[in-house]
């Protein structure tokens, strides 16, 4: 009963946040000027009459508060309007891209999470050993390397130089499959995933490992760890059951934040790998000032971040009995 109530309360709490974020982005965009003027500025063949028609069509002649309320009304009914370029419904664009973004992110986050556990624990347990220095060095490289540059370097090596993996997109046309020795659609998808997943996993892994290592070092100093050893609990169990559960809680918060951070960071990776996802669409939309599409993607990503945060808090409360949800 407490749980359902809590989720409902948190969801209600999100409403002003979502409205606030949408209002801010809306005002900033429309303060920049007339979107039709901006969008067609470079096109001499468009007449003033046509512009007027477009403004009428997109409802841009109304006062800004009316426009916002109309947008909000449509948003509540699950409609993001139409793209200024080609007039395709934003909903349709988003639903065609969201899966590609989610696929990339979920695989990378999970991989990073599960690789970081043994690496972080081992590094902390063998503090100051050669293995620890290696893990820590890789981790500091990981948090310092620009994702786009690392992606480019991988493309140069594995696509251009060695020709092992495709450099762009999420799918290749079947006639291209023989180039990489691919036999079916699944392998094709896998081949396209390797480089972007590597880049994203590496970036996430670095943060996770650093946090987990620091957490483990702190936890291993605690009396309850010595008490577990003093009671004859085998070392493996001390580390992976009793210590890890305590060290992993900050990692769980990070997991929530990193989902947010990665979704927001999707523009960078997706641009480098020409990945047909929300991030790349956002970059294109922003460069073209395609306002309805910008609003749509911003809202979808914001909502995903909020849901990720809620899930993180729930998991946190589930792991740590001292945290109560209310």
């Amino acid at each position, binding site marked *: 009963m407490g749980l359902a109530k809590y989720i409902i309360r948190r969801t209600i709490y999100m409403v002003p946040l979502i409205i606030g974020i949408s209002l801010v982005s809306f005002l900033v965009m429309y303060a920049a000027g007339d979107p039709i003027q901006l969008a067609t500025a470079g096109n001499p063949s468009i007449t003033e009459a046509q512009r007027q028609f477009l403004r009428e069509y997109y409802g841009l002649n109304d006062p800004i508060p009316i426009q916002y309320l109309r947008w909000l009304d449509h948003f509540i009914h699950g409609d993001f309007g139409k793209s200024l370029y080609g007039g395709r419904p934003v909903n349709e664009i988003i639903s065609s891209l969201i899966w590609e973004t989610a696929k990339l992110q979920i695989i990378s986050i999970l991989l990073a999470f599960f690789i970081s556990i043994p690496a972080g624990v081992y590094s902390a347990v063998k503090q100051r050993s050669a293995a620890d220095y290696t893990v820590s060095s890789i981790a500091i490289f990981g948090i310092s390397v620009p994702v786009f540059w690392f992606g480019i370097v991988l493309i140069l090596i594995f696509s251009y130089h060695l020709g092992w993996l495709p450099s762009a997109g999420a799918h290749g046309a079947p006639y291209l499959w023989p180039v990489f020795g691919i036999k079916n659609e699944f392998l094709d998808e896998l081949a396209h995933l390797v480089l972007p997943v590597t880049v994203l996993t590496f970036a996430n892994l670095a943060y996770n490992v650093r946090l987990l290592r620091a957490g483990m070092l702190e936890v291993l100093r605690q009396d309850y760890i*010595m008490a577990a050893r003093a009671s004859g609990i085998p*070392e493996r169990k001390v580390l992976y059951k*009793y210590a890890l559960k305590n060290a992993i809680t900050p990692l769980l918060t990070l997991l929530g934040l990193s989902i947010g951070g990665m979704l927001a960071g999707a523009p960078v990776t997706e641009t480098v790998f020409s990945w047909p996802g929300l991030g790349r669409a956002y970059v294109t939309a922003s460069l073209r000032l395609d306002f309805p599409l910008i609003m749509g993607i911003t809202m979808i990503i914001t909502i995903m971040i909020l849901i990720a945060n809620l899930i993180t808090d729930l998991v946190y409360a589930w*792991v740590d*009995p001292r945290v109560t949800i209310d």
Partner: protein
Amino acid sequence: MNLLEIEYLKTYFFTEAGVVKAVDDVTLSVEKGSTVGLVGESGSGKSVTAQSVLRIVPRPGKIIGGKVLFNGEDLLLKKEEEMRKYRGKKISLIFQDPTSSLNPLFTIGSQLADIVIEHEKVKKDEAMERVVKALRIVKLPDPEHAIYQYPHQFSGGMKQRICIARALLLNPELLFADEPTTNLDVTIQAQIIALLKDLQKELGMTLVMITHDMGIVAEMCKNVVVLYAGNVMESGSIEDIFERPHPYTEALLKAVPRLDETRKLISIPGNIPNLIDPPSGCRFHPRCQYAIDLCKERKPPLEEVGNSHFISCHRWRELQGGRS
């Protein structure tokens, strides 16, 4: 027959600042079934001695020499897996701070039952029954319910009872209690001390009471070992130690508040020395009111001066002579 004999134990901590000689040539013995007080100020090496016996000295500490004979077998020569079977089963340790020594993320039942399972290879239900029994022995109210609760749901005194139950789960032969009352309220302290005394009598186990409180020693122990800066200063029966004490023990005894005396509480002047670069000769000499040049130059050996009364002091005999 001695249950535990420690000979020339050396446990050093290899820190970045230097090697801390936390336990240096500690020698002591514990008779089976007795209660022994291990006494000293904080930093004297009491806790590290207990941790060394169990071989759970935290990093960067290392046992670098000596013998730890338990029932005649040297624990320092055992393989890690063999040693593990001693911990919690034959030798147990109660910690100073019950709050930090219970894992906050596991229920009392699950963390205690795990110990039974690891040692006895029993089913979880059976292990839980054993836990409930142990909790009943330490007089924790409503143990059937307590096993499903988390540490933060108990008071400090109750947590220490749980910790004592954890130490007694498998009826160990030897129990170290490392300042078990220091972090508790005064009234709770008395209860815990009474509980330990009762349990020791009922279960007939051997108890090593680690403390800096001479009052507790006087109340509970038959024999006492006095540590200072990682060295044994004195060991012997409680009578010997109270009546013919080592200069350091004498200073410690003067620091005990007593209701029946009006004299001022005397604290020992100076601080516990830096163990990276300990004082030459007798480690206590910089703070000793009787110190002479010899004390600075040569370390006094631990000599048997009476029936099982050992003293490490150049001037003790002379001082006793003067006194009597």
